């Protein structure tokens, strides 16, 4: 396809400040907790203190009459009005999970599982009343260690499932046994990634308001996916979708954590339905740690077979991860494992391949998609193996990668497991990166400083990344989540354009993307494009933002809508001028003659004629100045893209402390709509990956208690420790759309952890220690150095 017609406009690719950032800068944003409608009740939730326990008795009588309390809901109350849910993907063979309800009825399966909800006139009173709920628990045996979850003598969490296995997937290509049999060298390691949590600064928040008079339920929700929520709430509370309106106002960060169904939120909806008045629930920080979906937490045993000449003969990976007691709803908790088994060493000619991924149930917090789903794990394993192999062969890690990247002629390339790599730019990305960071110079510096007892390391991490997912991700699995998106454009009476898009916004810049694409394609000044998002009542149907799909899919729908509106405008003008539409164009809000640039009429004049002076419109012509276009990426499972990162660190070998000295990224997201947005989003994603590499870890006791569930103890990356991150690009537009944009939001997270771990191990090289577990804490480094007994 050809590049989009931008009519000489330059808003696609322009570093324009975001229009919708101004109110956030002035403290005039509107997050869900900022809304306080009349008669609003505030909910607090009682949670299980145990990882696995039976509710022997539950008495809410004292709580129900406590000051300010209007209603106490138990698991049974909610069960009577909400259909249970099971989070499985039907296209993942053998995947199973148990039925789940918003509030535990007889049994709680993780510490923090919601058990009862109190609705009161203030949050403080609701919390006071929680202490008056009398509940008797009988502790049950817990399953916490994923490694032993499948042992025959381990208790089974859901007996009806016959075991603790959620699913197992095996991906094979070629003869792996033969590859290892004939290998001259084998490198192997056990890679461990910690469980971590999204820790959005704005916690999950919901405000449900059921108006019994007209049967309408309005839900203001801090969510990435209003349409998914509308479907779920209607389906499970047995309402018509036309009764449910979901509004996502300003959302204070999502990162995939706000695309799941949460029992506390569903219980708040139930309370509003019962009481016929607004009920607000805000997850406080402590309950966020045990209530939000966690992610990662993989153990991958992996090895690579190499020939005498250093060719990769085969790769084998065995991935095991614990997903909490239920597969998450509605998206399932499979995707991390699916991506790990797809993508280990996918950037390279990896030879024979066998990857096994197993997800097991355990009594820990719920688990699911979080930024870069599975990619950081696959990247950690792949790039760890590549560095081990390069070291074994005595080849520079950059050169070793250069030798093994998929060759540029091999695209499109179908990987075992399903993904198709449309076209990657790995060689170009590598060379760009090496130049940006002055790789040779840093190697010289590293060598020199080593003689002075200063130990620095350089780590590289290439990554392959899914984006613009098709229906293969959810729809084919029987999950009702849109894989298409739409944009409705209307020309206003004064010649501006209002764009209603199914994109949503958690700060990534969805608003700006639609605004810039529409301005460019329609020829309307940027400032005269207003975007409407985040409301099922005012925007067309679509999937929202997750899986690096917003710009690529919603942006393409906007582009097609813009083309259609422009075509309709020009057809109308041509008819008024008794001429041909092809002779006209639109620039800066003016219809012009394409050849001469001569102004014909303003868009305001076009709109006024169409709307107010229909007497001047030919009888047989109806101008259509409101148009909708939709788009779904149907060519591949996803528009896979690529990039590479580098990290430069200094390790204090006495204390095990790591100082980050520099970080570089080259990313290929195809067409860049706004470099300001892309670059800082990549940096933020890198910082999340660096957080995983150095700091973040949900520490559980053997009894299934989260030991560090506060922001004091769960360490998130702060400004003081983060390096400056230089971002570069290669640009390989996807041919699956006219816009050509691919995902950018997850790239940073996909590769950063691996780059930091590799850099750390590079620094430790002279000492012979290797760390293959993140976070790389000072203690783990000192142990690798043999400094701790």
């Amino acid at each position, binding site marked *: 396809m050809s590049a989009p017609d931008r009519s000489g406009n330059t808003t696609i690719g322009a570093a324009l*400040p*975001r229009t919708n*950032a*101004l109110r*956030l*800068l*002035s*403290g*005039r*944003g*509107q*997050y869900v*907790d*900022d809304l*306080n409608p009349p008669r609003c009740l505030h909910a607090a939730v009682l949670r299980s203190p145990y990882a696995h326990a039976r509710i022997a008795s539950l008495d809410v009588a004292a709580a129900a009459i406590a000051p300010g309390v209007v209603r106490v809901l138990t698991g049974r109350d909610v069960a009577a009005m909400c259909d249970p849910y099971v989070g499985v993907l039907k296209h993942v063979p053998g995947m199973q999970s148990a039925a789940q309800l918003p509030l535990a009825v007889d049994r709680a399966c993780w510490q923090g599982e919601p058990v009862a909800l109190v609705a009161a006139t203030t949050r*403080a009173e609701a919390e006071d009343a929680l202490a008056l709920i009398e509940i008797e628990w009988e502790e049950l045996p817990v399953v916490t260690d994923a490694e032993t979850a499948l042992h025959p003598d381990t208790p089974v969490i859901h007996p009806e499932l016959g075991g603790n296995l959620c699913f197992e997937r095996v991906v094979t290509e070629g003869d792996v046994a033969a590859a290892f049999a004939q290998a001259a060298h084998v490198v192997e390691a056990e890679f461990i990634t910690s469980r971590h949590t*999204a*820790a*959005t*600064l*704005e*916690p999950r928040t919901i405000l449900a308001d059921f108006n019994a008079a007209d049967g309408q339920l309005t839900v203001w929700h801090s969510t990435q996916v209003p349409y998914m929520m509308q479907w779920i709430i209607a389906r499970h509370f047995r309402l018509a979708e036309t009764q449910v309106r979901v509004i996502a106002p*300003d*959302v*204070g*960060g999502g*990162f995939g954590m706000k695309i799941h169904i949460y029992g506390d939120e569903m219980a708040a909806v139930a309370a509003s339905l019962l009481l016929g008045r607004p009920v607000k629930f805000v997850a*406080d*920080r402590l309950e966020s740690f045990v209530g939000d979906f966690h992610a990662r937490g993989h153990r991958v045993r992996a090895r690579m077979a190499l020939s005498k000449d250093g060719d990769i003969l085969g790769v084998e990976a065995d991935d095991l991860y614990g997903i909490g007691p239920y597969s998450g709803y509605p998206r399932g908790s499979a995707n991390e494992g699916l991506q790990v088994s797809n993508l280990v060493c996918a950037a390279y000619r990896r030879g024979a391949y066998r990857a096994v991924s197993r997800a097991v149930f355990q009594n820990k917090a719920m688990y699911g998609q979080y930024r870069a789903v599975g990619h950081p794990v696959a990247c950690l394993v792949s790039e760890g193996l590549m560095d081990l192999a390069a070291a074994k062969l005595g080849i520079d890690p950059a050169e070793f990668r250069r030798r093994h990247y998929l060759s540029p002629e091999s695209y499109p390339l179908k990987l075992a497991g399903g993904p198709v790599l449309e076209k990657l730019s790995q060689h170009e990305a590598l060379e760009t990166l090496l130049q940006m960071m002055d790789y040779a110079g840093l190697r010289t510096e590293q060598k020199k400083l080593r003689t002075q007892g200063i130990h620095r390391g350089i780590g590289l991490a290439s990554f392959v990344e899914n984006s613009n997912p098709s229906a293969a991700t959810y729809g084919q699995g029987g999950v009702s989540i849109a894989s298409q998106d739409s944009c409705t454009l209307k020309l206003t009476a004064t010649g501006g354009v209002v764009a209603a898009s199914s994109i949503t916004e*958690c*700060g*990534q*810049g969805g608003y700006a993307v639609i605004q810039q694409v529409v301005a460019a394609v329609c020829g309307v000044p940027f400032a005269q494009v207003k975007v409407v998002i985040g409301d099922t009542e005012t925007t067309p149907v679509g999937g929202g933002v997750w899986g690096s799909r917003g710009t690529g899919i919603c942006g393409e729908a906007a582009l097609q809508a813009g083309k259609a509106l422009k075509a309709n405008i020009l057809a109308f003008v041509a008819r008024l001028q008794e001429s041909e539409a092809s002779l006209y164009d639109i620039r800066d809000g003016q219809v012009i003659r394409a050849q001469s640039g001569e102004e014909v009429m303003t868009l305001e004049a076009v709109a006024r004629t169409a709307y107010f002076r229909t007497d001047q419109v030919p009888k047989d012509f109806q101008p259509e100045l409101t148009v909708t276009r939709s788009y779904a990426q149907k060519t591949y499972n996803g528009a896979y893209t690529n990039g590479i990162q580098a990290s430069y660190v200094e390790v204090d070998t006495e204390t095990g402390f790591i100082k980050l000295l520099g970080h570089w990224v080259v990313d290929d997201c195809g067409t860049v709509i706004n470099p*300001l*947005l892309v670059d*800082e*989003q*990549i*940096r*933020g*994603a*890198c*910082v*999340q990956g660096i957080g995983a590499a150095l700091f973040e870890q949900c520490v559980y006791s053997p009894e299934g208690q989260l030991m560090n569930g*506060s*922001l*004091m103890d769960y360490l*998130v990356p*702060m*400004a*003081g*420790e*983060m390096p*400056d*991150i230089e971002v570069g690009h290669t640009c390989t537009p996807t041919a699956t759309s006219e816009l050509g944009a691919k995902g950018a939001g997850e790239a*940073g997270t996909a590769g950063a952890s691996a780059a930091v771990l590799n850099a750390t191990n590079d620094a430790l090289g002279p000492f012979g220690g290797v760390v293959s577990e993140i976070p790389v804490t000072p203690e783990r480094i000192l142990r690798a150095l043999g400094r701790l007994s």
Partner: protein
Amino acid sequence: MNTPKPATELDVAFTVNGERVERRVPVRQNLADFLRDTLGLTGTHVGCEHGVCGACTLRCNGVIVRACLMLAVQADGADIVTIEGAATGNYDGAIVADLQREFHQRNALQCGFCTPAMLLTAAELVAARPQASREEIRAHLSGNYCRCTGYQSIVDAVESVCRSRSGT
């Protein structure tokens, strides 16, 4: 011994963004909740309620404090500035306005939840030490959690305002 009865509610009077406020306040309510729920000044955000995330940072009697770690009754007699009034306030409104402009130009925010507090925190540094190095800027901002940006654009924006004000 003349002992006042311990109070569960108290009358307080203070100024917020230059406006006089008089209210009866439950003593257990913290300043952030009072500003948000009672006065409707929702630009002060609540992110952790244990003093770590920094999202509720505002200015009390000229210095930045955590509004979740201060009772509303403790603001009695104080001069409070929140983001809603910071850019036009008496202290360093011009600094806040400069920071807002630089944050906007450099996209030093995404979801915006940390932004009001980040601006007020940065303003204190710009006012006190406009010659601050990049590393000092990072250290000063290290009590304000941002999950979206990589902090770099924020540091860039603050550095830019510092440089323009220190004339270097």
